[in-house]
């Protein structure tokens, strides 16, 4: 399987992009020049600071630098480059202290400037560095996909497995319920479920609430597919063999039937992670998910809801680009996985 992904250049690239994204998320405190909640009150909606190697006179500098910016118009937050101020970029520089992996206390950051400000992707309405917040936000947006998929797939496979294996009334009941869940308009279901939880929750509670909501919506479709697969696997001879030597139903489901659905599950999981990322973003975008000052790609975009802000400060859309790239990578990877495992799958689903 890995072999065929390596052969598919696009899929291999996607896999690498995802590795990089997860790596960035894990080391966010170190890579981000600023903590997610540091506000530069004197620099709201600061435009992205370009990194220069050549100064305004065309002289080359080995150490890259950024120019200082002057606020020209404090009402419309309009800035101009101040060529008289140069701030060289230092690596492994001291900044705000943080706990790497939550254990090691350090004040080192991958890069930063002294005195001036470095906003690779500009700043938001409170003068917070968008690049730094995107790195912290990646932790939420990227992990919600994995945890959500894991939870709903566990529920989905177990319930689908039970439904397909036992059949009869149990099957009927489960299938009817999953039908209802699936035919529910998912956006409204998400809103209604969100209303079940109190509006004010701690940030960890919100995170798990979102996972629970999305998994509750997501398991049904999967359970139906697994059920169908179990129905066909159930009739195979090795299951009969297992039965004849007296294996229990649970053992047969867990040891013999579900492992046969793994390749399908892997593809389906890869292709459904984007749904969870989108679900989180949608909730946070509407102010119902991750709350400020914590960053998620979704809630960072909520300031873009005002079109005057979007038109004057287009860099606030950067988190949307991150969502797009992540989803694209997962889709390409899932597609490649499907192509790689397809022949076996076709036989199984038929």
């Amino acid at each position, binding site marked *: 399987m890995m072999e065929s992904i390596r052969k598919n250049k696009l899929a291999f690239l996607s896999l690498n992009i995802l590795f990089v994204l997860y790596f960035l998320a894990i080391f966010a405190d170190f890579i981000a020049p600023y903590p997610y909640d540091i506000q530069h009150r004197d620099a709201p909606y600061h435009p992205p600071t370009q990194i220069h190697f050549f100064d305004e006179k065309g002289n080359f500098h080995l150490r890259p630098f950024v120019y200082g910016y002057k606020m020209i118009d404090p009402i419309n937050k309009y800035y101009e480059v101040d060529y008289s101020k140069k701030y060289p970029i230092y690596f492994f520089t001291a900044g705000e202290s943080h706990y790497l992996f939550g254990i090691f206390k350090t004040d080192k950051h991958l890069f930063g400037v002294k005195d001036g400000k470095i906003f690779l992707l500009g700043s938001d309405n409170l003068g917070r560095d968008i690049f730094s917040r995107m790195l912290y936000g990646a932790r939420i947006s990227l992990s919600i996909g994995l945890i959500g998929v894991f939870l709903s797939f566990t529920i989905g496979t177990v319930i689908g497995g039970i439904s397909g294996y036992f059949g009869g009334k149990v099957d009927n009941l489960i299938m*009817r*319920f999953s*039908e*209802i*869940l699936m*035919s*529910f*308009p998912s*956006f*409204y*279901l998400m*809103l*209604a*479920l*969100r*209303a*079940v939880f*109190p509006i004010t929750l701690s940030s960890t509670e919100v995170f798990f609430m979102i996972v629970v909501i999305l998994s509750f919506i997501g398991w049904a479709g999967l359970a139906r597919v697994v059920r169908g697969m179990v129905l066909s696997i159930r009739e195979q001879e090795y299951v009969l063999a297992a039965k004849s030597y007296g294996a229990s139903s649970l053992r047969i489901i867990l040891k013999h039937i579900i492992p046969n659905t793994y390749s399908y599950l892997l593809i389906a999981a890869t292709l459904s992670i*984007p749904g969870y990322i*989108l679900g989180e*973003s*949608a909730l946070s*975008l*509407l102010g*119902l998910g991750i709350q400020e000052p914590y960053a998620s790609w979704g809630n960072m*975009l909520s300031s*873009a*809801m005002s*079109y*005057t802000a*979007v*038109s004057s400060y*287009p860099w606030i*859309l950067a988190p*949307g*680009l991150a*969502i*797009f790239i992540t*989803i*694209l990578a997962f*889709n*390409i990877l899932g597609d490649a996985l499907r192509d790689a495992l397809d022949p076996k799958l076709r036989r199984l689903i038929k």
Partner: protein
Amino acid sequence: MIFYILKRLYQLIPLLIGITFLSFVIIQLAPGDYLDQLRMNPQISEKTLNQMIKIYGLDQPILVQYFKWLINAIKFDLGYSFSYQMPVLDLIKDRILNTLFLSITSGVIAWFLAIPLGIIAALKPNSLIDKFIQLFSFTFMSLPGFFFAFLMLFFAVKTGIFPTGGAYSPNYESMTFFEKIVDRLWHVSLPALVIGIGSLAGLVRLVRSTMIEQLQSEYVLFARAKGLSEREVVLKHALKNALNPFITILGFEIASLLSGSALIEIIINWPGMGMLMLDAVLSQDLYLVMGGLYIGAIMLIIGNLIADILLAKLDPRIRQREVEGALK
């Protein structure tokens, strides 16, 4: 056929009850209710509150409340909205029309482009044009709808080609009939493009893969061998056989006409069901939420039914199994 439709309808009714009951329970699960907001208001006396509880039957068990609501809902009496103090049906009528207008326009964009584009791509797999169509579909499948909406808003503000928000201009009332139509279309174009291109991306991919599969089958080879023109082979034979999955999808689309575009509506500020339902859920406006979901569930049933009927009409195999078989 009538018997078949009735049978399908009968099978779909439990779904309607299931959806509405589940939503009723979920909304009631939420802590507090709409009256909590009124209780905070010192101007509203205890007596008025008790009166309201009586009128809305909020002191009764959930099951009783649900059945009361259901019996009224069958008669299309959807109750009163707490927050707007007006009948739910009056409140959502305009919104539903706006949402339907948007989703149907975007649906038309998606379907009328997806079928020809998919066929073109399928006729010459891996050609330049096919690759281009595939790239397009993959990009827009991965582009989140809300992000696309933001980008389009940005574009709209910068160029001024599209209006930003609303379903018609402020001076709509003073326009002639023809101007009104143009104005409506102008306002719907931006959200319709966002939603339409989004669903076009998925549809094209599906049309392409189904058509490729059909074009490789033996009856196409036979039709070609018989000397039929390529046009006839593709449009009369392959396309007709490739249609089945799309009719099912069309059914889904009809089902989601009211809810599919909610998030985009909220972002683009389209006065449809999306914003109304968001407010209703958050303020726990029970009957308003239920009303929206009820109409949504009815759309679902209509969508499923239309898909079933079309499938039975177009595919003799299904007709034989489901319709004529049912009579025996």
